[in-house]
Structures are given as C-alpha cells and as structure tokens.
C-alpha cells in the first residue's frame, strides 16, 4: 500500500470518527423536560380540527377538548429520546361533519399527547389508540385505528400545538354509503391547533 493511499484512508477514518462523535453528542443531548415538575392538570382545546383523507374528503370538528395530568417528577423528565406522554382521560369532539354531512364522534381508549424536545425544539404528537374514535355520518362509519399524528411544533409561549396538513391518522371505513371514504383502510392528514390551558401553562424544553 502506498503512503498516499494510507493517508487517504486515515483521513477518511478521522472524518468518520468526528462525524460519529458529533452525532453521538447530538443523541446524548436529546432529552425532554416538562415544567412544572409537579403533577398538573391540563386541558387541551381546539376551535377547529380537520382530517383530510387521501381521497380529499374532510372530517371537521368545530370543537375538540381533552384533559389530563402532566407526570410529576421524576416522570416529567426523559433524558433519552421519545419525549413524554401526557395521558388524556376524556377526549370530546363535537360539531363534526363529513364534507358538511353531520357526523358524531365517540372516543374511547387511552389517548395521549406526546411532547418532546429531541430535536432541540418543542414538538407535540397526538397518539390515538386502536379504535380510539368512532365516526358515524348516516350509514357511513369510520373507525380510527392506532395512529400518531405528528410530530408538529409546540409553542412554549402560546402553549399550542399546530398541525398543518401533517401527520398520519389511520382509519378503516365501512364504505356504507357512496360518499363515504372507500371501504377498507385509509389515511388522513390533520390540520388545526390544539391549545393547552395557559395557567399554569406547560413548557417543553430539552
């Protein structure tokens, strides 16, 4: 092996090692802390949340609300990745329609709002359990299956998670009427803002 080739290999190795170090340090600092540290009741509300299927049909609700409690210390800190779940005990969606057709939604199971600062910026996701929402619009029935809608940015000042045609909400449709989403599995994207109560107002930091 010539000295030039050896030098080339050595520099490549050094570069790769440096990159790994940087990446490792990035991973090492990925963490999430929710403040305040004490278990704190929170409510999240939205004055307009929409889910648009890949077929262009929109399920829209004028009012969404949910309430839960932030985990108390040490549960309010995750020194690794994956953020922290805030379990939502009761989720209510009202004033809903499927392209204007009146729709009622009942929820069940354990929903969660996952917040994380893994990337350095606060983010939030809505985690919906399998069968977490049952939508009925006439003879059209849609069941939401296990989904994580997000992550989308969380604003520590306004305490708001904002989605803009993002995330993937999985569902199955019974195809019960001609204007129902096609029978079988489908996906939808979410648009809307979910705002936490401002008092005390939770903050999400690395």
């Amino acid at each position, binding site marked *: 092996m010539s000295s030039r080739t050896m030098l080339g290999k050595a520099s490549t190795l050094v570069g790769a090692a440096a990159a790994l170090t940087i990446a490792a340090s990035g991973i090492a600092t990925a963490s999430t802390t929710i403040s305040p540290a004490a278990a704190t009741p929170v409510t999240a509300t939205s004055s307009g949340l929409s889910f648009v*299927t890949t*077929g*262009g*049909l*929109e399920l*829209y609700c004028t009012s969404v609300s949910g309430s839960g409690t932030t985990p108390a210390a040490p549960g309010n800190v995750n020194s690794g990745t994956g953020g922290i779940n805030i379990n939502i005990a009761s989720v209510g969606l009202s004033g809903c*329609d499927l*392209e*204007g*057709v*009146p729709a*009622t939604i009942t929820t069940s199971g354990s929903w969660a709002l996952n917040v994380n600062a893994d990337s350095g910026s606060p983010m939030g996701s809505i985690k919906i359990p399998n069968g977490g929402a049952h939508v009925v*619009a*006439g*003879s*059209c029935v849609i069941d939401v299956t296990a989904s994580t809608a997000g992550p989308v940015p969380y604003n520590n000042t306004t305490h708001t998670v904002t989605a803009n045609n993002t995330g993937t909400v999985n569902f199955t449709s019974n*195809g*019960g*009427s*001609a*204007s*129902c*989403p*096609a*029978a079988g599995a489908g996906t939808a994207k979410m648009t809307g803002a979910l705002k936490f109560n401002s008092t005390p107002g939770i903050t999400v930091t690395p």
Partner: protein
Amino acid sequence: MSKNALRTRVAPTMAIAAALALIGGGVATAEENSSLGSSGTPAATPLTFDGWSSCPVEDLDVATCATVVVRGGSMKIGGLTVPVPDGGLKIAGGVKYATQPDGSFVETFVPKPDGRNGVYSNPISVPGGAIGIDTPLNLTQITATVEAVGLPNIKVLDQELTMPVRLKLSNSLLGNNCYLGSTANPINLHLTTTGNPPSEPIGDYPGAVFPAVQHTDNLFAAPAASGCGVFGALNWAVNLRAGTPSASGKNSLTTSSDVYTVAARKVRPPAASAAQAAEPAAVAQMGAAG
C-alpha cells in the same frame, strides 16, 4: 295486421315525416345561413364543474355543496333511445340537513336562485330526429332538453338524485312548447347508485370528486306529449315516434357522472363565514340576557 290498418298507420306517419322534412329543411337552410355549420346544429359547450359558483352559500343553513356533472349515458323512453352526451346535464346546488331526534337527518336540496332549480341542460340531439332515420344535413333533427319542473333532491351521502322533469322537444314544426311531461305530470327521475367508489381531491378547488359514478333509473314513467305543433296538433306524431305515454318499466336512464362535494363553509366568503361563526355567540348572549 290488415292492409287497411297498415295504411292507416303509415300514411299519417309519412305525411308528418314529409312535413317535418320540409320544415327541417327550412331550418337547416336558415341555420346554415347563420354559420351554424352544415349539420344545422350549433355544438353546445359541454357543462362542466364550475368551481362551486352554483352553490347558494349565501344561505347560511347550506352545509354541503354538491355538483353532479353527467359525463355520458343513455335515455330510453318507449321506443326512443337518446344518448346523453358528455356534459349534457348538470345538477348543482347546496344541501341543508335537519337533524331528527333519533340522530338521523333529512336532506333538503337548495338551488341557486336563478330559476333553473339547480338543473342545467344542453339540448341533446335525438338520433333519427322526427322520422326515426338520419337524413342528409339532419333535416328532420329534433333536440331534447331536460327542464326541471320542481326542486330536485340530492342525498349527498348516498349520491341519490330525484328530479321531476319534462323533456322539451325542439324543432321548428313542433313549436316552442312541445314537451314530454309537464309540471302537473312530470317525468319523475330517481337516480340511484350502488357501491362506494373512491374519491379524489378536486385539485384547484376544495372538496372531493367521485369520478364516473354509475346511476340508473328503470322505473320512471313517461307521459304523453303535449303542446307539440299548433294547438298540439302534432302531439300524436310525437307520441308515435317516442312511444309515449310509456309506462314504468319500459323506460330507463343510465348515466355516468362525476359527483363533486364540499362542506359549504370551505367555499363561503369569509364575511359570511364570520357572521355564521358569530351566530352561536350571539344566541348565547341573548340567552344570557333573557
């Protein structure tokens, strides 16, 4: 059939055919002179989706806008079969929902207040025209135009369409009031579909479209002709040609349509939407004051 009976039937038909041919020739000549083409028929611009401009969103109770653009099909009335061309018919308007105590809802169609009842139609050429055979230069051509004589009803979820209509038959000899069906005795179309076709985003407009939805109605009856010719003198000829009146079961309409739907709030002007949003608050305040 006896020779006399045959002669009795054929003679008037031949007479009216000849008359129609003569009049038709006159029409064709006139139309040729007005640069409408050698066929004597101006090509109607196919009706298309209009981007929700036919939805009466100013009515704040309208929750869904719906448009059905017929892209093709066939109408059979008695012995007459008429192909429905692409864009020959469009039904467009809004839909209100009245929720019932049991949670179900009643859908009510609301057309744009333009006097068309939400039904827009192009004249459709009747193959064979007045005498049942195509003639050079379409001399005996007849066109049929669908006119709504009452409010249609669109069930958005089921994509069902109910329309009381009359068919206007046009030819110079037939006059301007020749119809199959009337306001009092319409052709009641009830188009239904089966299945659950996949939808698609519309593109530049909000909402979704269900392409190529197949609708059928095999049950409508077609009344006898009225108002054809001077004082209805040619009603019998039209009935002879169309086989009318034609009882339920002898007629059919099959169509392939693009069905568009959108929540009205998405196409309502912001000012109207704001007024609508403020409505519940105003009601709440009134309730509090009361």
